[in-house]
């Protein structure tokens, strides 16, 4: 304690201490000099400053004091080099900011755990198969195809019951499926909410507690149970205003009465972070709620070939995921074998696998994780370029500060001490850059959210700068400071003191070798690495830009311009089936007579919107052809082909004649015709539709092949059938209307709203958009990539050019004397320019060679994001090389020209 007090007192009087210590030394020296003579005394005494420092050091918490000194000194140095500091801070801010922004998305998507008990114990059950598995006759849910392998988390309900009752690895096993938008009425007030159908064990299995009332239990999820639902906390507070007597309240869902039994814990919004659930309905009440689709058929719960339910389990203590997978895989293999009806189905059975479910269902992760990894790699590379730049600037500054370093070292400063001081300066820079980077990131996150959402109203992914992201930023900033600061610090302290003090230009001892006649040192190596990384990013940008261009120039088979799209759902507004059909037919007529509308039609899904509706097709008296692609269906109204401008090649289009009760008809595309009726005309032929209730359908026309659901995937065989003839397979509920307009389609939106309001005031006009926007939305990833990568490419180029320019300019300024001598001895200016440019070209070509080799390997990772262009596309590579060469020459020419302008006399005098 007293020791501390003494130290503090010393701290208060440290100036006096310094004076006294100095005086003491003088006294000592004087006494010694009397005895032995002045020189001997000095020689023996040694380094007075160091001695004083050491004596001083006894008093202080040395590290802290030195840190303080370093910080003060660093601030002074930074303030003294405003341009350098600004440039370094800005490039760091861009680099760190971009990294933080992308990381915040990764964090939001991949690392945020569900707000449930022990999320790390949760497991998701999935299957995968090569191609489309034949045992899947009907499918509702989401599947994902990559490299010909289909993966999905949707299973038949009997499979769920089998797993639930027969597994030994899970303590809880439960299921859910997406409920879509549900129409709710509470206390006479209507709401639209996101629904989730859950099994009785859902809340118990997840370990979610109620914040009011109780949650759905096993007893509620039975065919005969009283109809109850639970709601989310945010729905209760946000939409229902947190009403007190929420438990026990009546609620109508799509017209069916239910009772709210309780509210889930705050924060909990279901297990799919992509679309948070607001209303939780027992899965057995699905039939009562679903107006649409064939979902209310009783087969739903018994059909082993109908894939729709998603399952999660909670591992028993001591069981790991591999053990659980082994058991479930065995169970499923036996079970699914029993559902296969034909040899073909046996040949392509799906195989089960498990995934960790702690952060919820992974549709979101699957969609965004790979793009985010690629973006993360890119911003990482940009940060590397920024680091190289700053390292280079520091290197040349270290050169300027050689004298300072030499003085410090000769006065007895330890090398480590000087290095630490230089590193402190670097870290100050990088932390400053990191702070600015947070601002950049905040802007970047907002921009990226807009870019990714691309106008989609359901984009719920909230990336934010939370504590974890900020810690990441801090770590990145410190790491960068260390990375770019270390090399210059080492170099700076390798000063050969004596010549440095004499300070002649010829006496620089730098680590360098000669390569192809060019001087090659650390800073040159940095420039080479910058050029190669830039090439990588520019090449990637080129590939994505070309992908986007290819996608935009895909031949759609119909005219995407001047098409207005919107959605009507009369059934949800209380119309019965007949009235709905009547209304839609009536409206279609009214729309067609709007001035400025050429034609109008309707279809059950919009075209090229990543929506697919598939069915089984059988041809009487013909063996089923190999099933590469399932046949897709579009339920359309009259004038569909005229409105979309899809040419009919044979036969006739669908028109007003094709009504309910008449002969079922279809127009098929060329691919359908070729697949099922090769070599003969398909018109007049019959086929059967659907798995359960088969319908006989006559082909009345063949349409030119048009894009169906996606720009990228192969076009499937498509059967266009009248929506009025959909019959039992699908109740007419909501339909998309397509209006071919003369001018800007959106200009007619209000006219459409007025007409719909006049005809059916209760039916809202939803999702008003244009066909072009719908298509654009399907290529959001590609567009995002193209935009971001172009930005990244330009940024990388700019930084690399800056690096090259700086290095060359510095090299020229150092060689002023040499160049002056050469010129005095008769070297032509042309040769001087060449001398500098040769260095540029050597660095450039080395960078390009390395970059090309890297690009050759690295672009293969981009394969699944490219369209119409190969990863190693020679044209793109050549273009990228050309851009880089041009930039390198441009950046190098300035210093070269300056070298040529050197006046030999001045240069020599300066020497």
């Amino acid at each position: 304690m007293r020791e501390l007090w003494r130290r503090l007192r010393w701290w208060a009087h440290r100036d006096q201490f310094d004076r006294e210590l100095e005086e003491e030394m003088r006294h000592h020296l004087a006494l010694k000099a009397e005895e032995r003579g002045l020189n001997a005394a000095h020689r023996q005494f040694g380094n007075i400053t160091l001695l004083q420092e050491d004596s001083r050091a006894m008093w202080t918490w040395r590290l802290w004091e030195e840190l303080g000194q370093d910080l003060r000194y660093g601030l002074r140095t930074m303030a003294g080099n405003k341009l350098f500091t600004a440039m370094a801070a800005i490039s760091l801010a861009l680099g760190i900011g971009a990294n933080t922004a992308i990381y915040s998305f990764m964090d939001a998507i991949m690392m945020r755990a569900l707000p449930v008990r022990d999320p790390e114990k949760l497991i998701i059950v999935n299957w995968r198969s090569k191609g489309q598995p034949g045992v899947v006759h009907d499918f509702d849910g989401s599947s994902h195809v990559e490299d010909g392998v289909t993966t999905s988390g949707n299973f038949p309900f009997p499979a769920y019951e089998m797993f639930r009752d027969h597994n030994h690895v899970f303590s809880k096993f439960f299921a859910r499926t997406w409920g879509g938008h549900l129409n709710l009425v509470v206390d006479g007030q209507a709401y639209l909410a996101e629904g989730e159908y859950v099994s009785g064990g859902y809340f118990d299995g997840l370990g979610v507690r109620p914040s009011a009332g109780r949650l759905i239990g096993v007893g509620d999820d039975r065919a005969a149970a009283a109809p109850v639902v639970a709601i989310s906390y945010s729905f209760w507070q946000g939409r229902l205003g947190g009403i007190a007597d929420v438990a026990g309240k009546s609620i109508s869902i799509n017209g069916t009465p239910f009772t709210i039994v309780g509210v889930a814990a705050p924060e909990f919004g279901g297990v799919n972070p992509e679309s948070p659930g607001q209303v939780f309905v027992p899965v057995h009440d699905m039939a009562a709620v679903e107006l649409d689709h064939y979902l209310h058929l009783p087969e739903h719960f018994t059909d082993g070939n109908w894939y729709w339910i998603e399952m999660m389990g909670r591992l028993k203590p001591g069981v790991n995921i591999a053990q659980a997978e082994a058991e479930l895989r065995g169970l499923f293999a036996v079970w699914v074998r029993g559902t296969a009806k034909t040899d073909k189905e046996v040949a392509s059975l799906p195989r089960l696998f498990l995934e960790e479910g702690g952060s919820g269902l992974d549709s979101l992760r699957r969609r965004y994780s790979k793009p985010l990894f690629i973006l993360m790699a890119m911003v990482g590379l940009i940060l590397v370029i920024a680091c190289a730049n700053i390292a280079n600037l520091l290197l040349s500054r270290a050169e300027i500060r050689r004298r300072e370093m030499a003085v410090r070292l000769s006065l007895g400063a330890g090398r480590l001490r000087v290095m630490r001081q230089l590193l402190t300066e670097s870290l100050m820079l990088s932390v400053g850059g990191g702070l600015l980077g947070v601002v950049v990131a905040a802007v970047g996150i907002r921009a990226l959210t807009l870019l990714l959402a691309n106008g989609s109203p359901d984009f719920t992914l909230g990336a934010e700068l939370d504590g974890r992201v900020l810690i990441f930023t801090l770590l990145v900033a410190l790491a960068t400071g260390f990375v770019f600061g270390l090399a210059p610090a080492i170099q700076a302290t390798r000063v050969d003191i004596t010549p440095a003090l004499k300070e002649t230009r010829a006496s620089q001892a730098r680590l360098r070798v000669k390569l192809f006649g060019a001087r090659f040192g650390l800073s040159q190596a940095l420039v080479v690495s910058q050029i190669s990384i830039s090439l990588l990013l520019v090449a990637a940008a080129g590939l994505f830009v070309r992908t986007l261009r290819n996608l935009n120039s895909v031949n759609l088979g119909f005219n995407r311009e001047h098409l207005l799209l919107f959605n009507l759902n009369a059934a949800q507004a209380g119309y019965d089936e007949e009235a709905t059909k009547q209304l839609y037919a009536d409206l279609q007529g009214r729309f067609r007579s709007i001035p400025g509308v050429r034609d109008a039609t309707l279809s059950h899904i919009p075209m090229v919107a990543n929506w697919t509706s598939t069915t089984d097709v059988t041809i009487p008296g013909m063996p089923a052809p190999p099933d590469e692609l399932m046949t897709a269906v579009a339920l359309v109204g009259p004038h569909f082909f005229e409105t979309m401008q899809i040419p009919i090649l044979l036969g006739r289009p669908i028109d007003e004649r094709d009504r309910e009760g008449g002969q079922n008809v279809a127009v098929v595309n060329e691919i359908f015709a070729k697949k099922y009726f090769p070599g003969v005309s398909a018109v007049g032929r019959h086929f059967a539709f659907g798995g359960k209730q088969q319908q006989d359908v006559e082909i009345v026309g063949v349409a030119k092949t048009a894009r169906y659901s996606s720009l990228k995937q192969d076009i499937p065989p498509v059967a266009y059938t009248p929506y009025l003839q959909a019959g039992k397979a699908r109740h007419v509920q909501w339909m998309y209307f397509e209006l071919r307009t003369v001018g800007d389609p959106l200009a007619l939106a209000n006219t459409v709203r007025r007409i719909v309001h006049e005809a059916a005031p209760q039916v809202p006009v939803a999702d008003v958009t244009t066909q072009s926007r719908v298509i654009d939305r399907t290529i959001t990833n590609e567009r995002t990539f193209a935009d971001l990568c172009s930005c990244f490419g330009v940024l990388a180029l700019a930084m690399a050019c800056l690096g090259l320019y700086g290095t060359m300019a510095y090299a020229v300024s150092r060689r002023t004397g040499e160049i002056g001598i050469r010129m005095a001895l008769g070297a032509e200016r042309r040769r001087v320019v060449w001398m500098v440019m040769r260095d540029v070209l050597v660095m450039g070509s080395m960078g390009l060679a390395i970059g090309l080799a890297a690009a050759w390997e690295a672009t293969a990772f981009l394969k699944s994001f490219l369209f119409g262009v190969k990863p190693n596309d020679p044209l793109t590579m050549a273009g990228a090389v050309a851009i880089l060469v041009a930039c390198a020459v441009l950046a190098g020419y300035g210093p070269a020209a300056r070298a040529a302008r050197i006046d030999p006399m001045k240069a020599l005098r300066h020497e």
Partner: protein
Amino acid sequence: MEDRSEIPPGTLYMLILKTLARLGSMHGYGIAQHIQQSSDDVLQVEEGSLYPALQRMLIKGWVIAEWRQSENNRRARFYKLTPEGRKQLSRELREFERVMAAIGRVIQPA
């Protein structure tokens, strides 16, 4: 001159403390001189270790310092033992003797 030995590590504090115990109060140069002379020029105290050591001892409270006129009329900083310093000296001496005795036993011919 050439035959001077390094001061064994850890004993510098003890030597300084003992010197001050003997001389009462002394400045840095005098302490170094005293150690050198009383060791018959075998032990030489480097200034580089002496002054940091003195500072350390000030922190520990073993010595106090005051400015006084030296014998040849110069202002000098004189160091003096504190009671704490005396205790420390006897501690260090005991420890040193213990170690010396132990070393002696090891190197003595059996």
